[in-house]
């Protein structure tokens, strides 16, 4: 049964990333990987939120965690695309943009994870 939760969560996360990432990218233009950045940051927020409501509020059972955290968040966020797009920025000489992408993804990732955790604690 857990494989079904994993598959459905993964499929939903993949479609969500494709749709939302594409929407954000078209909204902000092609000069910077905004789509991947926003998708990864919102994913960090979501996993922070789910981790608290699961571990401290006990609102998520094992299959819910598999569906939401491993399946959905795992497929929704993407490390490989983040690295590829950072590499593309470096290849085209946009070193500052590449650095900004790394710093924003990692540092803001921790920040929004913390925000997700804090909001989860309020539930």
């Amino acid at each position, binding site marked *: 049964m857990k494989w079904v939760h994993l598959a459905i969560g993964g499929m939903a996360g993949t479609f969500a990333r*494709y749709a939302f*990432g*594409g929407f954000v*990218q*078209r909204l902000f*233009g*092609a000069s910077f*990987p905004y*789509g*991947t950045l926003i998708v990864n940051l919102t994913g960090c927020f979501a996993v922070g939120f789910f981790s608290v409501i699961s571990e401290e509020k006990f609102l998520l059972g094992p299959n819910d965690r598999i569906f939401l955290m491993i399946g959905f968040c795992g497929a929704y966020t993407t490390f490989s*695309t983040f690295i*590829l*797009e950072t590499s*593309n*920025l470096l290849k*085209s000489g946009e070193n500052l943009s590449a650095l900004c992408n790394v710093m924003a993804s990692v540092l803001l990732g921790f920040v929004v994870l913390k925000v997700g955790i804090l909001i989860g604690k309020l539930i």
Partner: protein
Amino acid sequence: MQIPRDGKLLRIFIGEADKWKAEPLHEAIVHLARKEGMAGATAVKGFLGFGAKSHMHTTKILRLSEDLPIIIEIVDSDEKISAFLPHLDAMVKEGLITLEKANVIMYRPD
């Protein structure tokens, strides 16, 4: 085969994802150009561009790299290009086709 000195350059701007009867459109056009006895055809893939819908396509951003621009260039006589155009009218549903004079300096098959 010879191309007259006063030839024509046909440029076809399409997308990588465009299809003609389940075949990639750029392949279908080049194959048809060969079948119709055109002097030659070259398909070139672009790494950045936008078209009529103003959607930017670029290799830099993975999500925007799905339908990269392709330009097919064909140089031949005015008559042969004119005979080829009706085929393109049927095949190219979305894109840009331009025609300009080409001063053919050299065309050597060997």
